[in-house]
C-alpha cells in the first residue's frame, strides 16, 4: 500500500485525525466498528479513482474522546464538525456500519452537504422479527466472528502491529467500542426511520451476502424510507464489514455508483 497523508483538524470537541489519499472527486469515509486503527486496502482501491478523505469520529482511533457526548444532538454536531473540518461539505460520503448510521444523520440534517451517499450495512433500524445481532454479546475477543467473513484477518487488523504497545491498543479498541455502544446500544435503532425521508441524496446500499449483524432484508427497509433514489448491491463472500472482506468488489461497486 502506498502512503497516505495524515493531518489533524480542529473541532469543538477536539483534534480530529484525517487520512487522505488520491486525486479527483472528494469522497468521505466514516468507518464502522473499531474505526480505522490502520489504513485499509479498501481505501487504497478507492483512492485510485478519488480523493479519499477519512476523518476519525469521536471515540474511534484518531478521534477526540466521545466521553463528553451525551445524546444524539451532541453526536450529530460533533460528527458534522469533523465532516466540515475535513473539507467534505458537498462531496460524496461513504458510511460503513456505525459510520453508516452517522453518515445518514449528516445527510438528513444537512441535506445539501452530501452529493451521493453510500451506506455499507448501516445500523439505524431494528425489526423484532429479524433482529440486528448484539455485536457486543460475543465470546471474549470473538466479536470479529460476527463482523467479518475473514475473522482471523480482521483480528490481525485490530492488533498492535509490533506488539510493543498492547495496552494502548487494547484501550484504543475499548474506546472505539464504547463509542459504538453509545450510538447503537442496546438494539441498534437510532430512530433514523423518522429522518430517512429527509435524505434526498442518491444512495447506494451495499450488503455482504454473509452479513451476520444486520439482515439483508434491512436494505429494503432503508430503501423504502429514503427520500431520494437508491439502489442495492449485494457483495459475495462478505460479512458485515463488506469493505474489509471484499475491498476490490466494494470499491468497484462504489466507483460505478459515484461515477
Amino acid at each position, binding site marked *: 500500500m502506498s502512503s497516505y497523508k495524515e493531518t489533524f483538524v480542529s473541532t469543538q470537541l477536539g483534534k480530529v485525525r484525517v487520512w487522505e489519499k488520491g486525486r479527483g472527486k472528494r469522497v468521505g469515509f466514516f468507518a464502522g466498528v473499531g474505526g480505522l486503527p490502520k489504513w485499509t486496502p479498501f481505501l487504497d482501491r478507492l483512492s485510485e479513482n478519488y480523493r479519499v478523505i477519512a476523518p476519525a469520529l469521536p471515540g474511534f482511533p484518531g478521534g477526540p474522546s*466521545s466521553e463528553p457526548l*451525551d445524546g444524539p444532538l451532541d453526536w450529530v454536531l460533533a460528527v458534522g464538525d469533523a465532516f466540515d473540518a475535513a473539507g467534505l461539505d458537498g462531496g460524496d460520503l461513504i458510511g460503513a456500519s456505525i459510520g453508516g448510521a452517522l453518515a445518514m444523520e449528516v445527510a438528513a440534517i444537512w441535506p445539501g452537504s452530501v452529493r451521493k451517499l453510500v451506506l455499507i450495512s448501516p445500523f439505524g433500524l431494528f425489526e423484532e422479527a429479524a433482529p440486528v445481532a448484539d455485536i*457486543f*454479546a*460475543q*465470546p*471474549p475477543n470473538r466479536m470479529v466472528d460476527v463482523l467479518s467473513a475473514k475473522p482471523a484477518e480482521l483480528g490481525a487488523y485490530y492488533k498492535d502491529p509490533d506488539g510493543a504497545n*498492547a*495496552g494502548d491498543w*487494547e*484501550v484504543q479498541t*475499548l*474506546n472505539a*467500542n*464504547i*463509542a*459504538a*455502544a*453509545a450510538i447503537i*446500544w*442496546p438494539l441498534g435503532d437510532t430512530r433514523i426511520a423518522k429522518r430517512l425521508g429527509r435524505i434526498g441524496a442518491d444512495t447506494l446500499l451495499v450488503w455482504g451476502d454473509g452479513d451476520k449483524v444486520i439482515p439483508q432484508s434491512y436494505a429494503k427497509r432503508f430503501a423504502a424510507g429514503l427520500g431520494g433514489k437508491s439502489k442495492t448491491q449485494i457483495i459475495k463472500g462478505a460479512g458485515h464489514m463488506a469493505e474489509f472482506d471484499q475491498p476490490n468488489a466494494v470499491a468497484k461497486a462504489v466507483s460505478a455508483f459515484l461515477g
Partner: protein
Amino acid sequence: MKVMWFHLMPYQDLPVDFKDKHNSVWVDIDPKLYDPVAGHRLYNEYIDELVYADKVGFDGICVNEHHANAYGLMPSPNLIASTLARETKNAAVCVMGNSVALYNPPTRVAEEMAMLDCISGGRLIAGFPVGTPMDTCYAYGQNPSNLRERYYEGIDFVMRAWREEKPFSYNGRFNQQRYVNAWPRPIQKPNPPVWIPGGGSVETWDLCAKNSFVYASLSYFGHQASKVSLAGFWNAMKERKKERNPFQAAFLQFVGVGENRKEAMDLYRESADYFYGRCLHTDPSYANPPGYTTEATVRARVGSQVMQAAEASRRRVRQDTSDIFDAGHVVIGSPDEVADKLRAVCKEMHVGHLMLLLHYGNMSAQLTRYNTDLFAKKVLPQIKDLFENEWEDKWWPTGMPAVTEVRAPMGAAAE
C-alpha cells in the same frame, strides 16, 4: 468484628443437565424453568432463615439485587428487606443493592431506603453496587458507555436527598429534577452507612477511599480472590493518607461447618457443586460490554500480574469445580478449623465485616439451620472480638436516636 448472614436466594430446581442444555443462568435463562409454586416455598423459607440468623446472634443480615438470574431471586431487595425490618429486632439490615443507575429518578432509592431505615429503627446499611453487566446492561438494557457515570451521579443524588435540609433542584448529567424532596427521611444522620460492593475495579477503590464508604469485596471465589481486591482498596486508602480502619472493609465468604472436615465435606459438597456448577453457569459473552470495564482498570490489569493471576484462577474454577474446598472458595471444617481460618484471613486482609454465605446452591432448610446453629454457637464466639478493642466501627447502623426530651403533644404549642 461484625459477622453477617448473607442470602443470595438461589432457585433450587435447576435441572442436573442445566450446564449442557442451557446457555446461561443469567439474562437469557428459560422462563419455563421457574415454578412460581416453588418460588412461594423458597421465598418464605429464605426469609425465615434470615430472621433466624438475627435470633441466634448474627450482627447483620444481608440481601442483594439481581435481575433475570436463577441464583439470585431478589430483583427487588427492598421488598425482602422490608419484611426483615419488621420481623427482626437487632440485626443490621444490609441491602447490598440498589443499583442506583437503574432507577429513574433515583429519588425512588432515597425514598425506599429511608422507609427501610424508619421501619427498622435505624438498622439499615445502604449498599450501592454498580451492578453486574448481566444485571445492568443486559437484563436492564442500560448503555454501558455511561453506566458508571450514571451510577456515580445516582449515589450523589441519593446522598443529597438524604442530607439536604430543604427541597432542592438537581441538575445532573443524567438526572434533572426541579424538586427533590425525599419523604420520609432516614433515621440515621446524616445518612445510613454506605457500603459499596466491589470486584476489583480501580474506580470502586477510589470511590470508597474518597468518600469514606465501606469497600465490600463480594467474590464467589473466597478470600484468595478478595485478597487482591482488598489489597487494591487499602492501597487506594494509603495513597489518600486515610486511616486503615478494618471496619471500612467487608468481604464475603462461603462457609460450611461440620463436626469435622470430613463430615463438612460430605454435608456441603452437593450444595457447593450446585452453586459453582449450575448457578455460576454464565455466558461469558455477557461479561464485558464496552465501558463496563474502564480504561483505568484495563490499564491496571495489563500492568498487574497479580490481577491477571487472580483472573486466571477464577476462570479455572469456573471450568473445574473439584477444588472448591481446597482453594478456599468455600471454607469448611470443624468449628475450630473454620474459626482459625476466618480469623487468619480477616486479619491478613484487615477486614472488620465478615459476610457469610451459610446457605448456597440447593442447600436444604435443615442443613442451613445446622450450619447456622453450629456457626453461631461454636464459631461466632471465637471471632467476634477481632478488631473490636482497637478500632471503632463508624460504618455500622446507629439504631434509634437516644430520647433526650419528650415532645409536647400536637396542639399544645408554646405560647
